[in-house]
C-alpha cells in the first residue's frame, strides 16, 4: 500500500532543520547543479585536454586535476540513494514517467530533455539551482536568491498555460 506524502509544513520544518545542520557542520548548504557542471567538465577534459583552456571548464581544474572530488558531488550521490530508499520503503518505487494521464510519453521526454538543457544553462548564470542558490541563499539572507526565486516563479507562472496538457488531467476526475 502506498503511503501519503508528508504534510508540507512538517516537511519544511524537517528540511529546514537539516539545512541548518548542514551549514553548522559543513559551513555550506545543499546543492545539485554544480555536480552536473563538474561531471560535464570532467568528461570533456578527459576526452580532450584542450578543454582546460575553456574559461569556465578551466576554473574547476586550477587546484586539482579531479573536478569530482567535491562536497556537492558526494552529496548528490547521497540524494540519489536517499530517494531510492525512501521510495522503496513507501512502496512508491516504479519505473515510469510522471505526467498527466493520456499525455504522450514521447512528448513528455522531449520537454524533459529540452527543459533539462535550459535549466542547466540557467544554473551557470545563477551560480546554482533552487537548492544551491535558492534555499542556501534565502537561508543566509542573500538578496540575489530572492531575485532568482521571484524570476523562477514569475516565468513558471507566465509559461504554465503552454504546458498545461502535460501536467493537468482536465478530462479527469478533478474537473
Amino acid at each position, binding site marked *: 500500500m502506498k503511503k501519503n506524502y508528508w504534510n508540507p509544513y512538517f516537511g519544511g520544518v524537517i528540511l529546514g532543520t537539516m539545512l541548518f545542520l548542514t551549514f553548522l557542520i559543513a559551513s555550506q548548504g545543499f546543492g545539485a547543479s554544480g555536480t552536473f557542471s563538474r561531471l560535464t567538465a570532467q568528461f570533456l577534459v578527459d576526452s580532450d585536454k584542450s578543454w582546460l583552456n575553456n574559461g569556465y571548464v578551466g576554473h574547476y581544474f586550477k587546484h586539482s586535476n579531479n573536478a569530482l572530488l567535491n562536497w556537492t558531488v558526494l552529496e548528490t550521490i*547521497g540524494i540519489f540513494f536517499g530517494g531510492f530508499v525512501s521510495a522503496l520503503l513507501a512502496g512508491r518505487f516504479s519505473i515510469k514517467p510522471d505526467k498527466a494521464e493520456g499525455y504522450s510519453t514521447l512528448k513528455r521526454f522531449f520537454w524533459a530533455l529540452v527543459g533539462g538543457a535550459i535549466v542547466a544553462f540557467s544554473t551557470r548564470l545563477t551560480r546554482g539551482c533552487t537548492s544551491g542558490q535558492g534555499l542556501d541563499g534565502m537561508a543566509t539572507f542573500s538578496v540575489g536568491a530572492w531575485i532568482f526565486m521571484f524570476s523562477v516563479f514569475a516565468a513558471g507562472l507566465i509559461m504554465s498555460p503552454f504546458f498545461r496538457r502535460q501536467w493537468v488531467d482536465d478530462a479527469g476526475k478533478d474537473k
Partner: protein
Amino acid sequence: METLLLPLYKNGFLTPEANFFFAIVMGFVFGFVLERTGFTRSQHIADSFYFRNLAVPKIMGVTTITATTWFILFAYMGWIDLDALYTPATFIWPYLAGGLLFGLGMVMSGYCPGTAVAGLGTGKSDALVFLIGIFGGMYIYFVLYDKIEAFASSGSLGVYKLQDLFGGNQYTSYILTVALEVGIILFLMTLQKLTNKGEK
C-alpha cells in the same frame, strides 16, 4: 574575539574526509525527505504553477523560516557567526535572466537538478531524460562561455544581504525573510481559493 566552534568545517574542527563522509550522509537524508514530500514527482512540482497543490512553495517557505530561525537563535546565543556561512554572491542581471530561463525550464520539465536526482532514485524515467538534457545544457554554456562571460558577471554586488539593502542588522534580515515567506504562502493560498482549482 574567542574562536567559535561553529561552523565546524570552516573553523577546522572537521577533517576534509569527515566532511566528505558527512556530504553523503546529508545528501541521503535530503533525498529521502525530497521523496517523502513528493518533490521527486515532476507532476507534483508542476502542480504548484496551476495552484492545484502548493506543496512546493509551502515547503520552500517553511524550510527557509525554520533554517533562519535556528541561525538567528544560534547567532543570538553567540554560538555562530552567520557571516562565516557560505553565502552565494549577488549578480543582478544574470540572476534575473537566469531565473526567468530556469522557470521556463522548470514548468517545461517539472524538475530542478536536485529533485531529478532523487526522482531518478525512485525510478522516474522522465527524470533520467531531464538529467541527460542537463549535460547538454552545461555543454552549450561551456561552448558559449566566451560570449556570455561579461553578462554572467554583470550587476555584481558581492555577498549582499537583505540588511545591506534595507539597513539594520541580521535581525532585520530575519524578520524580513519570515515576513516575505509567510506573505508569499498566504498570497498563493488566496490565489488558490480565488481560482478555485485547489485540491488542497
